[in-house]
């Protein structure tokens, strides 16, 4: 069934068929029984990139473009490892990274198909260059 972002929210109650864990366990099967039986573990308890994209569509349909864009970045970052996530955050703080280093982080993000987030990092690098917020080379 196709997805209607104006009608199918909340996904958890309106469209549970569209929501699963990263390992493909349907939402309805995240139960205490499954837990006891060892069928799900902690790594399974998170939103998938697909789910976050659907939430982005919901936000956009509600007229919230910046939130939708942030949720798109979140969908990209869902596939990015924790350490890389924190490293990129640190690099984006004032005077932590040179332009070249920020470009490297952008490229790393692209290698995880996080193209929009990579562009966001490049945009920051340009602004930091103008405002003196890059690290000394």
């Amino acid at each position, binding site marked *: 069934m196709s997805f209607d972002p104006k009608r199918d*929210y*909340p*996904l*958890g*109650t309106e469209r*549970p068929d569209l*929501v*699963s*864990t990263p390992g493909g366990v349907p*939402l309805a099967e*995240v*139960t*205490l029984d499954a*837990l*006891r039986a060892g069928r799900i*573990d*902690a790594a*399974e*308890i*998170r*939103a998938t990139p697909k*789910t*976050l994209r659907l*939430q982005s569509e*919901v*936000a956009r349909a*509600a*007229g*919230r*473009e*910046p*939130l*939708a*864009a*942030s*949720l798109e*970045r*979140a969908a*990209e*970052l*869902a596939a*990015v490892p*924790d350490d890389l*996530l*924190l490293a*990129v*955050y640190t690099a*984006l*703080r*004032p005077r932590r990274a040179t332009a070249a280093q920020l470009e490297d982080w952008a490229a790393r993000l692209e290698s995880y198909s996080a193209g929009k*987030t990579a562009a*966001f*990092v490049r*945009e*920051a690098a340009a*602004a*930091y260059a*103008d*405002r003196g*917020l890059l690290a000394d080379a």
Partner: protein
Amino acid sequence: MPTGDSSPMRSRRFASRERRELHREQLVSPFPELGLIASGGPNDPEPELVVEGGVVTRMDGRAAADFDVIDRFVVAHGLDLEVAAEAMVLDDTELARMLVDIGVPRAELVRLARGLSPAKLARVIGLLDPVELMLALKKLRARRAPANQAHVTNLKESPALLAADAAEAARRGFAEIETTVGVARYAPLNAIALLVGSQTGRPGVMTQCAVEERRNLELAIRGLVTYAETLSVYGTEPVFVDGDDTPWSKAFLGAAYASRGVKVRFTSGTGSEALMGYAQGLSMLYLEARCLAAVRAAGSQGVQNGSISCVALVLSVPGGTRAILGENVLAAWLDLEVASGNDAIASHSEIRKTAKLMGQFLPGTDFVTSGYSVMPRHDNTFGGGNFDADDLDEWLTIQRDWQVDAGIEPVAEDEVLRVREKAAHAVQAVFVELGLPPVSDAEVEAATIGYDSRDMPDRDRAADVEAADDLLARGVSGLDVALALERRGFGDVAEAVLSMQRQRVSADYLQTAAVIDAEGLVHSAVNDPNVYSGPGTGYRLEGERWELLQSLPNVVDPAELLGEDAEDEPIVVERGKAARGDDSAEVVVAVGPAFADTIRRTINDLSHRDVLQAICDGIHDGGAVPRVVRVRRVADVAFIAHEGAQLSGSGIALGIQSKGTAVIHRSDLEPLDNLELFGMSPLYTLESYRAMGRNAAGYALGQRVGPVPTELDNFARAKLIVRTTLLHARETQAVQPGAAPVELELAVPVASP
């Protein structure tokens, strides 16, 4: 005139006022150079947006080449230039009127806000007075129903107490609960205590543990917390950078949290730039408009604002309270969820801080406070506690007074004790199952009934932090907490904890202003939006919810108070119709229709037998002779006394109502005139009634009489007006229209001297 005397003349009233709590606070006149001006500062730029070839070349007094990081970020991500062409040319006053016009829908205002520069937003908000701001806030709030957020912390970081307080907060209806740490390594333990406690009190309550970002993200990844509001933004570039962030780093972090299933709310607020030394001569409200434009541009679903920790600074300048309400309105106008402050201590003065609260309390916000201290403020490690555990009954009463839902529910003591004990037991069980240092039964008991952490047994804190490190190393998650609860017989709490894990998978709570109900249904601005458009629309406190919020544990059914006093042996016996007396030394004691009959005690709880005895003794003391009659046709004390006076041989009567109000009357006076009125019945003792009797005797014998000294307690009315009303209702029920007065005799004869 100066006299050379070194000590200036002082008014004792000024001196008295200076000792009030209010005077602990410093008020200052505006000082725009340092940003100490609430709104409309002389250096605030004229609203401006110049677009050339689809590119913004000037905004709010700056050319693109001079844009700082905030300007650049807002222009890149937070302005809809198509709307701007239409919105920026609208007259400020016209926009301000649209904000309060119930005929202009919220959606239209939100749309226009996408095209307004920060200076324009601040300028328009600055045109609204406090009541207009409140109406605008009621209209612009994102979610249909208001809610509230709790703070739960304690100085000992006691897990049993954290769990019990979280359970009570959840049971009282808070939709979000926030904790933090004194010692950073405690974070996973506090997060677990909060998770277990909250889900014991009410399934679906969201929790957070405010700690450093990396640690916070780790807790989130493990499913131990569900939201974060630690992402602070500031309105000038130097302060933003001093906060070690930029709009890009914060926006990235927001998306990173969301990618791990954490609801994110940014934090901003007036006064922070002045406090941090770089307000750049700009007003607090204008700088907050810049913050909020950046928050929206970063893609945050919401913001915690309303000055937050700088509230006392904003309140030091004129118009501070209004500016804080203005910034809440501005955030709502930008379509952001608003957790509207009222958490940090705003004032030493209870009057002043409550007056400030009304701005958010009456219109209702997505979270009326961004941290109501469920425990006594002694244990609030946020530096919060503006309203705390001891203020709860006041909060509930004010909700009841205004018929307003400010997000806290009354709960009976036994039910609070039940959920607190269950939560403390549940966290005790989880600690055993997860191999953490045990929580003793003594801790469970103290957490259930204690006042604050000073009542809690001390724990081995070194063992706790070691165990917390180990817990993280073992990768313990929300799933392990659910399993531990289930194994120990807390199946319902386990199910609730697991339900929160399912919420992370569907991520519905990432949408604007989301809260989760007890059935696990998410309510956000998407599926439960505020559509207020005037009377009869939007969220109204009525029906079952209103029944709940008015039923405070201390409310009494007046029917119970109205019942007859316990039957006892008779105090008086009736001796037929009262005749006019002819003894010139006689004082008639005229009692009301219910006196010593269906009512047997005064409002000051004196028995009518003793009161009659004291009056008669007083009349004898004064050398006159008492005669007791009952007036049956009227309940008003003036008429009771006046009718008594008509029967009195001396023309003097002392009339008394059942509640104890008395009057000395003379037969030739108009009914509503009198010789002496004794209206402070709650204060009168038997000695007072004896003194009234003596004076009545003095009037009867034609002596010079000094009035009985007047006593005054202006609080008596507030305290006793309900009892007064109910007592008087019983007196009027005993009235027999047209019935003649009857002679009374004390059942036990009055002792004569």
